[in-house]
């Protein structure tokens, strides 16, 4: 089956007042995949993501999302995507159910709060305030708000930063479930193990350029073929495996 591009970015440039954050990048995201944007802080990942999400204006270049042009059809795009922002807050003094009701109104859809909270295993927190949630719960709730409008694509900007290993693995499972349900996922992360587990394809962004797009496997094979060797012999497990083994796999968030 031929892979259908659902997002096409062509020669995207973004200039801020005094510097160029994105210097002409091009890539495609295929329908139904998990696509990772990897790179150091300040590489331009978030800027690129926010331009595709219609939250920021581009300086030049062309972008289509699910067949809609970002310049002329921003409103149609917003209805088809779900966005999780880095460090976004939610309306103060409302509980999770009320926040879901608010987002239903903003998206113009009818969903029951419990149905949405169930998808991210937060039904027991329906009456809790967002600020009282743990880090992992906050991220799961954010993801619930991105799913309200049955989006074709969701964008997750560093969803696992600051989470403990259990919460992180738990979130991976959630992301894999969302993809299994047919939603395309675009994710940024600093954790290469995470990208290796989750992403079908990754793009490395550095200094406003894309310096490589491929599957994680292919990247690793290429590096090994070039004669690269790890300094230390890899063991059958790593320290994180030890941590999970000792502290258990269940979530630690209550």
């Amino acid at each position, binding site marked *: 089956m031929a892979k259908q591009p659902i997002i096409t970015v062509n020669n995207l440039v973004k200039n801020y007042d005094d510097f160029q954050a994105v210097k002409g990048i091009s890539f495609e995201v295929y329908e139904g995949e998990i696509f990772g944007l990897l790179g150091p802080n300040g590489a331009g990942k978030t800027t690129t993501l926010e331009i595709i999400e219609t939250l920021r204006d581009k300086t030049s270049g062309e972008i289509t999302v699910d067949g809609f042009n970002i310049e002329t059809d921003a409103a149609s795009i*917003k209805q088809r995507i779900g966005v999780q922002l880095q460090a976004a807050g939610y309306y103060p003094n409302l509980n999770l159910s009320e926040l879901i009701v608010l987002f239903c109104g903003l998206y113009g859809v009818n969903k029951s709060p419990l149905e949405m909270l169930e998808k991210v295993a937060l039904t027991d927190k329906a009456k809790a305030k967002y600020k009282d949630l743990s880090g992992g719960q906050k991220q799961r709730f954010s993801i619930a708000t991105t799913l309200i409008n049955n989006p074709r694509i969701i964008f997750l900007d560093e969803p696992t930063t600051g989470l403990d290993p259990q919460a992180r693995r738990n979130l991976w499972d959630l992301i894999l479930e969302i993809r299994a349900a047919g939603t395309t996922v675009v994710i940024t992360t600093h954790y290469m193990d995470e990208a290796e587990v989750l992403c079908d394809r990754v793009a490395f962004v550095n200094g406003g350029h894309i310096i490589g797009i491929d599957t994680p496997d292919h990247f690793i094979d290429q590096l090994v073929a070039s004669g690269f060797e790890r300094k230390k012999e890899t063991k059958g497990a790593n320290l994180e495996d030890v941590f999970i083994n000792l502290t258990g796999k269940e979530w630690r968030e209550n």
Partner: protein
Amino acid sequence: MKYSNLRATLAIAKASFRSIIRSPSAVVFSLAFPLIFIVVFANIGGSGVSVDVGVVKGCDTLNPVYIALKNSNVIHLIKDQPADEMNKNLAKGSIDAIVDIKPYTPGKALGLNVQYSKASAGKGGILKSLLNNVFYHMQSELLKKIQSFSALQIPKVVDLQETTISGREYKYIDFILPGQLGFSLLSSGVFGTAFVFISLRLTLVIKRFFATPVKKYSIVLGEALARLVFSLLGATFIILVGHFMFGFTLIHGVVTVLNMLALSTIGLIIFMGFGFVISGLAKNESSVPPIANIVTLPQFLLSGTFFSVTAFPKWLQHLSNALPLTHLNNAMRKVAFEGAGIGDVTHQLLILLIWGIIVYSVAVKTFKWE
């Protein structure tokens, strides 16, 4: 399904309203403060002046002077203090005067000692003129008796004709309540709006909204709607408490209340404009109060919230008359006490409209979405 901007606007209004009624500061500023001021001022303002007069032990209480003092509603007689304590209090000014009246025999001059205090010269003056009035009446009685025996008529110096026309009693609550209502609208409009928009902006709530199909105007309108509903409920509550507990005058009843709510709406819209400006100027939440106070404090003090603007010196009155709250208060009082309709306060509304245009043209320039 077609996307509905109305639905999005109402969703924001509902969320915002829930958030407002759960935030303690909104409830305290919009309801508790005005009510406390009303309770305090309605009680101290109502009875007017009171002069405390100490009565020396053994003072004659059957003479006309004592009876006149007793029947005066301005004079408050203090009978149960020992002499030295009374003198101390007089020196401090917590008693305004001490009287000692000798037993009265008709036909003889009445012996009367009055001590005033420099510590309370003004109130002493009230007692003095009240006493003079009593003496004048006693003298007139005496003169009348003498006249009945004499053919020689003494010409009248003054021919005094006193009449009191019937009218509505203007109680202090009638003055203080519209002022407090204005103050409530001002603080809710300025502080509430500024805080909400700056916090939604800084916590990226608005940015997250922008990732949904919602329009910018829905966000502003939804917030404004919630604040309006909250403030009008608060205003209704204040008016009802004032009316039923403190006898606040509502000439045409429900119609007057509706007119006052219409004025409240106009006032709140203008005050929210200040809030929008401040939310754009402030860098963070802690810089909101200083800027907001620059807007609210002068109006709180100078716009006839507690005392009539006419009590100020002329130059200050010009400043007062430039402030929007002054005109909202004046319009409120006209509507509530004089029974004016919205059409009768066009002068005030015109000045408010000019303020509205100025404030919103600044707000459009300074307002920041992110």
